[in-house]
């Protein structure tokens, strides 16, 4: 494989979060507008300075990024729309970084926004994908809970992972959320309460599931020069990977696309897992968190139960994980759920945390996972970021 170019002179800055709401009467357009406004306030950039726009949303229909730029009054010379949900944050970063590096755009706003109206969840589900309509929903209509229950059931059988192990991850993330004023769920969660929670789709129980909500996330990708002019603190991109529909012949998903590209990820960054200060992984269900711990190289495949048992995932622990509480505690704002890990990873190394600061954090690994088109998540991506 040809050696990839480094992301020289590209910087990432200004992570913003529009505070989530469980239900919103507003539209995705409103939430996107508020994200741009927050971005503008954080950077001092005027509307017309934004010459690149990358957008992710599930609830903006019938509009795409095209409808969105006219709605929001932007005139970018570079435009991208990502339908990849949980992988969209890292993918937005990758695309924007190359556009900026090559000069196709200089100031790219990456925005994910979704509303959550009373019936949004059911409607989004019903029209999600053709394979889901043909071959998943007619089977009990359990939504992603049922699909991930099957993945979780197989994973627990194959690798000896227990509900206590998943519980440790969920409890650690809730503990991390307690200092985050924007997290929707900040109350204490004990392992006992986790284990006693009502079953949703066995073996998935209540606290294995995210809470759908409305919200928006955004960040800026630009050149070091522009960031300096604006007086912004910045983050550099050490390495990224992306893969779609990896291992289609695996009977049940027991690994994600990260496993195909993880060597390239670390090689390009020139560091290893031991050099990571904060790990922000996609967490729609704890089984996917566990899979990423393996597939990103933090432990060997099959060793994850032991790894979870010996690791402290707290903000002051050995491997600070989903330090804002992740989607499991902060909430899942549709496609913005795929940006939340990015903004939190940026904040921790920019020393602008929403809650508690990870001590001496310089490097974050951000990992995305998106779109259960049929029986498994199809899109995976990861990025290693370092404070400039």
């Amino acid at each position, binding site marked *: 494989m040809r050696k990839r170019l480094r992301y020289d002179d590209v910087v990432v800055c200004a992570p913003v979060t529009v505070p989530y709401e469980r239900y919103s009467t507003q539209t995705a357009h409103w939430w996107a507008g508020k994200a741009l406004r927050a971005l503008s306030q954080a950077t001092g950039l005027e509307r017309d300075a934004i010459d690149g726009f990358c957008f992710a949303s599930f609830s903006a229909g019938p509009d795409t990024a095209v409808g969105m730029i006219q709605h929001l009054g932007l005139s970018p010379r570079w435009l991208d729309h990502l339908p990849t949900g949980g992988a969209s944050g890292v993918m937005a970063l990758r695309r924007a970084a190359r556009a900026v590096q090559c000069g196709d755009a200089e100031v790219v706003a990456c925005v994910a926004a979704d509303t959550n109206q009373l019936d949004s969840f059911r409607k989004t589900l019903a029209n999600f994908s053709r394979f889901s*309509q043909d071959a998943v*929903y007619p089977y009990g209509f*359990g939504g992603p809970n049922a699909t991930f229950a*099957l993945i979780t059931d197989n994973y627990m059988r194959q690798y000896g992972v227990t509900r206590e192990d998943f519980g440790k991850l969920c409890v650690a993330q809730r503990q991390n959320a307690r200092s985050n004023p924007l997290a929707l769920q900040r109350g204490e969660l004990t392992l006992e309460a986790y284990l006693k929670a009502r079953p*949703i*789709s066995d073996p998935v129980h209540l606290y294995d599931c995210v809470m759908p909500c409305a919200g928006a996330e955004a960040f800026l990708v630009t050149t070091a020069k522009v960031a300096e002019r604006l007086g912004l603190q910045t983050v550099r991109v050490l390495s990224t990977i992306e893969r779609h529909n990896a291992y289609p012949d695996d*009977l049940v998903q027991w690994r994600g696309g990260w496993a195909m590209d993880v060597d390239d990820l670390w090689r390009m960054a020139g560091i290893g897992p031991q050099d990571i200060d904060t790990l922000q992984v996609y967490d729609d269900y704890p089984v996917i968190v566990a899979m990423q711990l393996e597939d990103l190289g933090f432990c060997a495949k099959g060793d994850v139960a032991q790894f979870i048992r010996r690791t402290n995932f707290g903000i002051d622990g050995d491997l600070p994980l989903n330090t804002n509480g992740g989607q499991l505690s902060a909430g899942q704002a549709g496609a913005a759920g795929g940006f939340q890990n990015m903004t939190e990873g940026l904040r921790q190394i920019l020393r602008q945390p929403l809650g508690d600061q990870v001590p001496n954090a310089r490097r974050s690994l951000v990992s995305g996972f998106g779109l259960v088109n*049929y029986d498994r998540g199809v899109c995976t991506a990861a990025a290693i970021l370092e404070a400039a």
Partner: protein
Amino acid sequence: MSLRPKPEKRDPLARKVERHVPPGQRSRAAHALAARAATGRFVLQQCADCQAVTYPPRDVCPQCWGDLVWQDQPRGATLLAETTIRATTDLYFRQLLPWRIGTVALDAGPTAIAHLSPTLAVGARAEIRLMLDKGGNAALFALAAGETPDMTDTQWREFVVPVRGSTVLVTDAGHPVGRAVVEALKAAGAASIVAGIAPPATAPAIEGVRFVSLDLTDTRSVSECLTDIAGPLDIVVNTARFVRPGQGLLDQKRALDVGVLGLLRLTQGCGPMLRGRPSAAFVDVISATALAPDAAYPAFSAAEAARLSLLHSFRHEMRGANARVISLLVGAVDDADHQSVPLPKVAPARIGKGVVEALEQGLETHCIGDTATEAMQRWSADPALFIRENSL
């Protein structure tokens, strides 16, 4: 009459239980799968070039982008993972929770999500049935290998129409076919059987069956018969037909009045009664000459073709109503109507058995006997050729 069941004491203001159907949006390829599931086959798409089997239904082979054709597949599978769904936003499944599904590795190649028999455990061998759900769409059901489906299993019952305990109307019990259907339904455990007799025919003596006057050519007679049933009605089997060789005008009129208008009178009357039932079906015993005319029976064939067309429309009407509409296709029957037709002919008792099979195996199209089975094969393969050969 002492055999007449007491009418239900119903509160006219009582709230009705509303029936829902499973999510119904499907791709065109999934509808093609359902069309084949209707006959009880287990088919999946296979690439015409590289032979790879694919699922869920696609429009092109994911291995080589070749064209896909539907092929019968081995029914074996292994259950890899399971879940019991306890929460859903769908109104149909919400009434049925908890609901168990699993991931099966098909011997044919792909993996699939399937409804599970309660006896099937993870790691065990399974046998796949391609069923139709309450919305008439294809659904995979995994039984334990070698298992006889349990008609009391709440999940399995959603895909079939159990005869045991049901109230049934058979339209023409004066004819040997109708009589055989009555006897088969009785043997299968129907709780209450109402059998129509069209004058001047007289009722045979079958214990436990209530015979009523029913003339499908008379709208009032149909209406009175259905009103007389009064209580819930689960299954209607229409065996009425008027068969004469040739194409006499009077014969044609009568065949249309019994077979076509009669079907219409019946469905308009019983449709609303079937609509509210938890598990309902309308079975029409129809001649395979509906597919292509038999040169010796042109008038009858024309009536049967029109009847099949109406039956398809009734099926469409009942899709959202939780009721299955079954076409039971038969060849020449071994009866007085087909005296000069050479063998093979289908025995009335075989048709009776076929009605129960179609209901309890969850079929929507069921061919009874060799003649009807062959007719369906030839019609499916090349309709134009079949019509030509049938008329030579």
